[in-house]
């Protein structure tokens, strides 16, 4: 009797999970500043949110423009629960409250998902958009639940302190988030290895065929939608505890757009892609936004570039290059990569200067024509500055395109070599 090679193989993956747990545990010891701790906490939340989003996008092929509805409603219900605990109306430990968020997310997914998953493709996306706008518009109408302009605030240092943990210090909140992150990531991964998970992939690839092997595609999508809503709600609940305030923007279109943007950038085709996406999301919102006002512009351009040239996101770029390294072909590609880096630097320098100068003239004109930029002082009144900056940008753009063309050729040849060597060895 042949041994079925496709039975579960736990040992190799166990090390990855152990490593992940260690990273979560040790991160605050490596990044010790207060800002780092805040960011790490937010990253954990973002990871769960993006992974839950990718259940729809990457695994199910469902492009949703309204995922923030489920994370946001999870946040709202959790903060109401938190306030109830504070008033003594609810006796639950604070650490369990995100699960209420999860149940809220799940409940709304049951309700709204039924209508949403009746369609697929572009129509599905439009429905999610419409429902997101509906909920966002409603958030300004019902102030008891949504708190109007000020939102709903809460205090997480309430109720019974289990084992002396009050969740006052950020460090305690971080570890709570870390535990939830580890468990949720584990559960979400496990689900990809189940019949529902696999049939969800099948629905993504060929919904018609799925019907002809006995599965109701709408039911598959609906159930996945509900599960995704559950984890989205947990992320929202953790957010409520972390920030101790929930405002209408948590259900807003900007938030939904961010989930889409960063999950895609991280990589929707690999399980760990959204983990990268969540990390990038926090880095962008907290750090990048401080560096330049035009960060959304840069983000949009990078996103556009990725959709066209690297639709698998950062994760796929990493995996593909790992494969190249494994076959020892990296050296042939290094000059191209250096070229890309140089060209990007030129473009960034040129565009960055132009953008900052425009904003300077718009907003800080009263301060005079001098703009400090990367250690230099630039005179915005000089036309030369503009010409040089513009020239740098276009030079970088031209150079980028040259490198890209040569790279495309080299890339194909590297790949044919690899495929050929694999065919020989198998």
């Amino acid at each position, binding site marked *: 009797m*042949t041994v*079925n*090679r*496709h*039975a*579960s*193989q736990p040992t190799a993956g166990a090390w990855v999970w152990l490593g992940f747990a260690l990273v979560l545990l040790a991160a605050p010891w490596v990044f010790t500043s207060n800002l780092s701790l805040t960011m790490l906490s937010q990253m954990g939340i973002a990871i769960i949110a993006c992974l839950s989003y990718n259940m729809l996008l990457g695994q199910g092929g469902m492009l949703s423009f309204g995922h923030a509805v489920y994370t946001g409603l999870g946040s709202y219900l959790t903060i109401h629960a938190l306030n109830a605990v504070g008033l003594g109306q609810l006796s639950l430990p604070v650490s369990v409250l995100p699960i209420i968020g999860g149940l809220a997310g799940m409940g709304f997914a049951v309700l709204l998902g039924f209508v949403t998953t009746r369609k697929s493709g572009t129509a599905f996306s439009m429905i999610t958009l419409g429902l997101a706008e509906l909920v966002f518009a409603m958030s300004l109408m019902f102030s008891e639940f949504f708190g109007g302009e000020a939102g709903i605030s809460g205090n997480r240092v309430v109720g019974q302190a289990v084992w002396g943990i009050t969740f006052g210090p950020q460090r305690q909140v971080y570890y709570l988030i870390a535990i939830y992150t580890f468990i949720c990531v584990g559960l979400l991964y*496990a*689900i990809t*290895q*189940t*019949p*529902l*998970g*696999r*049939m969800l*992939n*099948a629905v993504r*690839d*060929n919904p*018609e*065929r*799925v*019907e*002809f*092997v*006995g*599965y*109701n*595609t709408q*039911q*598959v999508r609906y*159930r996945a939608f509900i*599960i995704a809503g559950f984890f989205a709600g947990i992320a929202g609940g953790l957010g409520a505890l972390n920030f101790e305030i929930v405002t209408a923007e948590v259900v807003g279109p900007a938030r939904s757009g961010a989930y889409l943007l960063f999950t895609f950038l991280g990589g929707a085709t690999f399980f760990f892609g959204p983990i990268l996406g969540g990390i990038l999301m926090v880095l962008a919102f907290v750090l990048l936004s401080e560096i330049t006002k035009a960060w959304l512009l840069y983000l949009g351009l990078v996103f556009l570039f990725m959709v066209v040239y690297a639709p698998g996101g950062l994760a796929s770029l990493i995996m593909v290059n790992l494969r190249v390294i494994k076959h020892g072909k990296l050296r042939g590609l290094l000059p191209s990569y250096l070229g890309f880096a140089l060209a990007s630097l030129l473009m960034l320098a040129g565009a960055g200067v132009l953008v900052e100068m425009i904003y300077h003239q718009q907003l800080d004109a009263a301060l005079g024509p001098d703009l400090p930029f990367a250690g230099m002082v630039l005179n915005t009144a000089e036309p030369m500055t503009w010409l040089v900056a513009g020239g740098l940008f276009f030079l970088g753009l031209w150079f980028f395109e040259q490198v890209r063309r040569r790279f495309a050729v080299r890339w194909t040849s590297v790949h044919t070599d690899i495929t050929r060597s694999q065919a020989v060895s198998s």
Partner: protein
Amino acid sequence: MSRATALSLRNLSKRFGNTEIIRGLNLEVSSGERVAIIGPNGAGKSTMFNLISGRFAPTSGEILLNGQRIDGRKPFEINRMGLSRSFQITNIFPKLSVFENLRCAVLWSLGHRYSFWTFLGNLKDANDLAQAWMQRIHLDSKSDVLAMNLTYAEQRALEIGITMAGGANVVLLDEPTAGMSNSETERFIELIKSVTEGKTLLTVEHDMGVVFGLADKIAVLVYGEIIAFDTPEKIRANPRVQEAYLGTLAEQGD
């Protein structure tokens, strides 16, 4: 000896806008029979298949599977009642491996439904059945290859595998050998014969050699109607059929 009627089409018609593609079609297929559907292009063969398998609902008429009405039902309902089909244009799961493709095909029939609490790796029945089918269609050496990276003939074989693995008793094969060379076709017909042993088979075919080698009976579909339904020899001799094919049948059969 009268066998049970597996598939019954009664006065079936299908209209798209003003055009009637299928008009008053009648057909009774007995259990275990192998029927080839032939006819000129545009006669409505694919439409007929689409009606039976639930892709379209008929404008009027009835379709019965093992005595139960299936017209107007959704494809997954019909599939669960024991009917399966393959497609003329290969319809597999391109980004899943060969093994995964077959495993997906058996999950529902084995009762695993929408479970998200059992691991695929632990489903011995699904894994063993998928493995067995992989061997039957001779793709076990390509177990982990992504379906989109198979050759055309291999993909067609996988298509048959997915169609059969769910255990359906009535099988519709839509031009299974489309696009194959002569040698590939011969081998493929042997494969079809072995995997459809004991099943009721309806197949659309253009290759007359295949038709005569495979079929117990032949149904001739012209302009949305079945003009003849009989054994191959009688069909070959049928003047109406000869007229419809302008004599090509008489020449090819020799």
